């Protein structure tokens, strides 16, 4: 079941590559705008880098949240999934994982390249990538709750940002914090452990919460 839903969503993403590419290019452009506008002040750029990359990752991940369930809602495949004898939470988990593979992984892979624009040292680039690798699945999982709650509503796109962005704040703080800590030469393990903890908690609770919201949204 989990395999099938991931396979299905990846297949759909391959058939509609524009959806994947817009998210990635949005991320690249937002991150690249700052060095261009601030100017080549190396120290300033280095301090700003973790925050900017993380904020851009949040926004890019949010950009595609609306599509997570709404396409399936419109063509009726979502109501068929609700009628499946298999657990709906598992299905939501599959959809969130597929969302992460399609939108999160490209961001993680692109981040070290973009970090060079900010003159980040090698260790900091590595920590930035690891923090994104741990943090982006949390964005997809928490985002699934928001997407499920706003399903079928007019203006759902704006509402989902208002619902979900505040919940992203802890991830943002610890994600950017890990990179800053590593540049300052202090331990960054605690930050990464906390993101890992968020990941585990959201893996357990987010699918369940999103599944309950879907049931309400479709009634």
């Amino acid at each position, binding site marked *: *079941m989990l395999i099938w839903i991931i*396979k*299905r969503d990846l297949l759909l993403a391959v058939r*509609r590559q524009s959806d994947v590419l817009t998210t990635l290019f949005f991320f690249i452009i937002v991150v690249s705008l700052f060095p261009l506008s601030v100017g080549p002040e190396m120290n300033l750029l280095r301090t700003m880098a973790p925050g900017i990359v993380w904020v851009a990752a949040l926004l890019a991940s949010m950009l595609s949240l609306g599509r997570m369930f709404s396409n399936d809602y419109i*063509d009726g495949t979502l109501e068929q999934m*609700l009628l499946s004898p298999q657990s709906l939470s598992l299905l939501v988990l599959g959809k969130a994982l597929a969302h992460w593979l399609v939108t999160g992984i490209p961001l993680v892979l692109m981040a070290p390249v973009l970090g060079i624009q900010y003159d980040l040292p090698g260790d900091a680039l590595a920590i930035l990538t690891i923090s994104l690798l741990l943090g982006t699945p949390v964005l997809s999982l928490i985002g699934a709750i928001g997407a499920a709650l706003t399903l079928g509503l007019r203006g759902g796109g704006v509402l989902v940002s208002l619902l979900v962005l505040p919940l992203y704040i802890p991830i943002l703080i610890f994600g950017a914090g890990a990179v800053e800590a590593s540049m300052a030469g202090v331990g960054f393990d605690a930050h990464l452990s906390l993101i890992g903890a968020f990941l585990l908690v959201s893996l357990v609770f987010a699918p369940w919460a999103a599944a309950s919201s879907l049931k309400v949204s479709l009634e």
Partner: protein
Amino acid sequence: MLQGINLACVRGDRELFKDINFLLESGGLMQVRGPNGSGKTSLLRMLCGLSHPAAGDILWEDQNIRALDSDFFAAVTYIGHLSGTKDDLTVLENLQISSALAGMEISTEQANDALHYIGLKGREALPVKVLSQGQRRRVALARLLVCKTSLWILDEPLVALDVMAVKLVRGVLEEHLQQGGMVVMTTHQEIDISAASIMELQLA
């Protein structure tokens, strides 16, 4: 055995229907009739567990479907107004994936056989978005051929189908009923299906 007891449906302030009672035994066909807006689709969505009745209970084998949850879903196939197919996937992928998500993995041969039977031979590798309305309907109905559920809930299954396809669907329904299955359906078209017991439920 599917039983409805004093079912009522409320949409906003308006009561669509109330005190609906029926008992559908194995091998039985129930046709839900009524003018547009009388709550046929709402009733069918209730029966398959997508929405909850405002009042009353729906029993499956003498147990409330809410308590049964996934055990009930394993016995039901619902085909609604929306086709439940993805435009970007091919006909074959649609059938295989929708069956797998409904808990029934099928082989490529099984899927191909079903598609040939329903009249989509040669279209297996086309994306659904290039098909006509009637062909999309056939893709959705192909699920009936591969599923192993006993209760079929069909909302206007004959819409957009040509005469040959209607005949085909009638044959599929009759075979299902003969094997002890149950069908609840709405249709505005006249279709004479022979079944052990045929009921009509008139709404409003």
